[in-house]
């Protein structure tokens, strides 16, 4: 019998706390509304402020982009900004996949997304793109972020890229290409291991082989060709982008 009493107590306590949370939630909503009325524009216009905002949320354990139904999204409009950006990122990656095998530098992605958004749209920073991409991962189509040099390569296909592949990509970043000898001397690997990694990248369409290079064959990464930045997305490629 005493046990039953304790059980009852337990239920009541949780109910109390839920009621408390509901009340606090309403209050918080009001605070957020006030904040939004003063600073909503700041968030829209100032990418540094967005970064601060996101970092503070992360510190306390809150994800303002988790749901379009969340308070943050509804009242500050941050949700729509990033979710729309997500759509634009997917479209650019799909359109260019046949060129680069599903790997693209953050810089080129940034350029192409800006172009697609048009003259009158809100400017977006590279940090904004990274946050949108982190959210896209959840959809299972292979979005990933690979640090190389001082920047990032964005993967948009479900190809498996392990540590070995990543390290070779980082090595290739400086010149846009890499050779077996360079891998062996920089990373101290055996020929077989270097070849395996390069062949995997070739198979995935992320690397192209130049057998006519002076010396030994060069493995080029189309994602790193700077000249390609200025190339427009052709109408055929744009059709690919919209399923």
């Amino acid at each position, binding site marked *: 019998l005493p046990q039953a009493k304790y059980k009852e107590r337990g239920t009541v306590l949780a109910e109390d706390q839920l009621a408390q*949370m509901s009340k606090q939630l309403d209050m918080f909503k009001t605070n957020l509304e006030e904040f939004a009325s003063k600073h909503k524009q700041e968030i829209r216009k100032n990418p540094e402020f967005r970064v601060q905002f996101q970092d503070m949320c992360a510190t*306390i354990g*809150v994800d303002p982009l988790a749901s379009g139904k969340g308070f943050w999204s509804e009242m500050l409009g941050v949700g729509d900004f990033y979710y729309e950006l997500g759509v634009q990122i997917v479209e650019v990656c799909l359109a260019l996949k046949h060129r680069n095998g599903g790997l693209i530098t953050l810089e080129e992605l940034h350029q192409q997304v800006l172009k697609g958004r048009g003259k009158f749209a809100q400017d977006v920073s590279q940090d904004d793109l990274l946050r949108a991409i982190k959210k896209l991962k959840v959809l299972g189509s292979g979005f990933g972020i690979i640090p190389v040099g001082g920047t990032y390569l964005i993967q948009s296909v479900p190809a498996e890229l392990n540590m070995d592949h990543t390290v070779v990509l980082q090595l290739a970043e400086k010149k846009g290409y890499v050779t077996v000898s360079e891998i062996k001397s920089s990373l101290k690997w055996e020929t077989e291991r270097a070849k395996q990694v390069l062949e995997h990248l070739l198979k995935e369409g992320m690397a192209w082989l130049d057998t006519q290079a002076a010396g030994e064959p060069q493995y080029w990464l189309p994602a790193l060709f700077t000249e390609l930045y200025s190339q427009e997305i052709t109408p055929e490629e744009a059709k690919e982008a919209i399923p």
Partner: protein
Amino acid sequence: MDRFSWTSGLLELGETLVVQQRGVRLCDGEEKLNFDRGVLLLSTHRLIWRDQKNHECCISIPLSQIVFIEEQAAGIGKSAKIVVHLHPAASNKEPGPFQSSKYSYIKLSFKEHGQIEFYRRLSEEITQRRWENLPTGQTIQVNKDPQAGRIRAVGIVGIERKLEEKRKETDKNISEAFEDLSKLMEKAKEMVELSKSIANKIKEKQGDITEDETIRFKSYLLSMGIANPVTRETHGSGTHYHMQLAKQLAGILQTPLEERGGIMSLTEVYCLVNRARGLELLSPEDLVNACKMLELLKLPLRLRIFDSGVMVIELQSHNEEEMVASALETVSEKGSLTADEFAKLVGMSVLLAKERLLLAEKMGHLCRDDSVEGLRFYPNLFLTQS
């Protein structure tokens, strides 16, 4: 604009590219010029502008010529700009497009955006002055003319004062926003603590809390963007919102699925649905959580996850295993096919085409030939001809 010199645009030894931006127009002070569409490159040493139509037309200016820079916001019909205030040209400067100019500043007009990133990088480079540590082959002219220096000092003081005032004003706005943000975050933190405490109670009680209360709790978490600390799931991470969403999706996706052979990747669905909505978009998590409830709610669609991790929505009536049979026929007719070729033939996305071929392989109907030329699938003769 008389500070610019003609250049080949090739980077010198020791000079690195920092950032570049297309669609930039150069203005001499307030006057527009013929340099109306170019790629603007920022290196550790220079600003380089190359005409997009005529690649031969390429000019540059050393970063050491820059006194300071300001941002100018976009307006209606006007692009955002960066105003670059310059030292007078050095007397031994390499020849450029203009001999003289009545302005001591230029404007960079960003017709295709990118000004935020560019401004940030340019500020960094001007502050770090990396060109001083990395001497390059070409002698970069720095103005050492003393008389010009005196004239410079007078004109600039006024500008610097204006800039200081503007900075104080901006700082004030930003610090107020940050203050308000900090206070808001304190309150949000309290909510997080409370939710953890409730979650612990739920874990302890294990079944004494009602279904209804759990759903309520989950919806509170959703509003705040707090991850669900309770691992015990009744409806995935579902709330009433996700159940509603699942039903909506079933309605919206029926026709598109039929048009695409009964199957679509989750990424395709995300884009389709959000483009149709325009406003109040779904987050990727909203979509996944709603899709997890499709089968539970006995809706005519379902979520399927392939071995590769690729997630798709299928019509209940769709049977991927049956599609494999027809895929086998197609591959046999052609002898062999890659995922790209199969996708084009059948009119599917490459992503889903690949999954179907992989499934056929898993079921033993196809064999792979994995070479550097790509992944090619053949009918499995080992099976049929053994």
